[in-house]
């Protein structure tokens, strides 16, 4: 019945329904849970309770936050008025970059939005769109803090994009594909020297790439050891200084959302994504997977994502800030040579075995 009804709708309608369903049914509750998890986690690390008032145990904090910021005045400073249009547009570009990243994430054997052959390539390309938003925000604010923050952010994102891309190459060599779905399958059907009890999550065989990738993610998110662009002790809050009201909230929530999405992509690349080792249930290919994995898969992916987000935030609250020159040196003289060496080592081992 449903299938017959669906086939009546033209393709663009089907894909639109899929996107709307996914956004409302999966990403909205997921966002609420992650937001609460992060806030509680941060609070406990700083010996405080965190959100307690909005809903039971503060669970409606995200909605309370949105409700509050909706009522705040939206200020465009006079100096920024000539560029008001792009000043207002900048947060939306950052948000769009995050949304576009979600497109390629596979949540289960059939639960996915798209199945690009070059999925990981797409993800890496789209993730750098946010730099544009940040540069625009920094420039159009007509504020010295914002300008410096925007320039720093651009310099940093450019430097850490490379280790990230090169770390992913190691995974692509091992999996032999850029399709995220196939990377998941390759990890869960794989075996380490004949032992297939845990599959072959690349966090074990590509440990160096995993570490490099996570460091680069930390820098791309401008989280604390790498938060020079929004260093509050010298730049107030960098490119966000002049933003107020709901546009500030878009930047603020976009930061957490991007942390979540990057963690999802990292868990797909390195932790086996939505899958469990197929040998546990006697599956062999992606077609033999039971249907319940379309519900269980997203939950598994979600758990792995929360673990990685936890690590990102843990590091954020444990380390002091890098200096700008240290930060650049670390990327160019540390991470990039390591990532290149990792590529060659992986390739040699792949050909040898």
């Amino acid at each position, binding site marked *: 019945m449903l299938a017959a009804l669906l086939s009546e709708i033209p393709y663009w309608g089907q894909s639109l329904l899929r996107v709307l369903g996914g956004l409302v049914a999966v990403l909205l509750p997921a966002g609420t849970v992650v937001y609460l998890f992060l806030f509680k986690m941060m609070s406990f690390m700083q010996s405080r309770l965190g959100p307690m008032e909005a809903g039971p145990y503060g669970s409606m904090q995200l909605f309370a936050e949105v409700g509050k910021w909706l009522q705040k005045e939206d200020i465009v400073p006079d*100096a920024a008025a000539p560029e008001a249009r792009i000043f207002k547009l900048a947060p939306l570009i950052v948000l769009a970059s*995050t949304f*576009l990243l979600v497109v390629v994430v596979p949540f289960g054997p059939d639960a996915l939005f798209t199945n690009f052959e*070059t999925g990981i390539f797409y993800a890496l390309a789209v993730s750098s769109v946010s730099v544009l938003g940040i540069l625009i925000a920094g420039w159009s604010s007509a*504020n010295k803090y914002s300008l410096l923050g925007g320039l720093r952010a651009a310099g940093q994102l450019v430097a850490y994009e*490379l280790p990230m891309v090169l770390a992913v*190459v190691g995974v692509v060599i091992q999996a032999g594909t850029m399709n995220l779905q196939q990377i998941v399958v390759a990890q869960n059907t794989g075996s380490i020297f004949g032992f297939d009890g845990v599959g072959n999550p690349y966090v074990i065989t590509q440990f160096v790439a995993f570490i490099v990738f996570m460091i680069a993610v930390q820098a791309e998110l401008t989280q604390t050891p790498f938060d020079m662009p929004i260093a509050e002790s010298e730049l107030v809050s960098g490119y966000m200084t002049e933003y107020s009201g709901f546009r500030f909230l878009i930047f603020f929530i976009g930061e957490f959302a991007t942390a979540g999405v990057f963690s999802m992509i990292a868990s797909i690349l390195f932790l086996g994504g939505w899958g469990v080792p197929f040998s546990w249930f006697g599956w062999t290919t992606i077609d033999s997977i039971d249907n319940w994995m379309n519900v269980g898969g997203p939950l598994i992916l979600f758990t792995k994502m929360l673990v990685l987000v936890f690590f990102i935030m843990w590091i954020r609250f444990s380390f002091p800030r890098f200096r700008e020159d240290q930060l650049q*040196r670390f990327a160019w003289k540390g991470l990039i040579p390591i990532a290149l060496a990792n590529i060659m080592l992986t390739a040699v081992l792949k050909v040898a075995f």
Partner: protein
Amino acid sequence: MSPVVVSETMSPFLRSYLTVVWFGLAAFLIAGLLLGISALIRPNKPNAQKMLTYESGVDPVGSGWSQSQIRYYVFALLFVIFDVEAVFIFPWATQLERYAGFGLIEMGVFVAILLLGLVYAWRKGVLRWV
């Protein structure tokens, strides 16, 4: 309702990119909708002090678009070089099984040249952010 016309002959490749369009639109529509609601209920009482550029509480000095040294343009050039290399490395990485030893040596030469470039920039002192 929508100007998007998808013909039956459209390839699945292009079709899957339709989802990308929806997501991009969704980002702007959701944010636009909330900003619209916000415009209805938020106060709007500008005054001269409020509309001043923020500079730690003192009156701003000079223009906000002050001159600053753009240190990273050499980094940006290096980035473009390395990023283009990455585009070449990815297809090779997917087909490594087929090319085996030959591909390995080829890419070894390629990465060695790349590393030489990095070492050259390093020795030239370009990688210093001061």
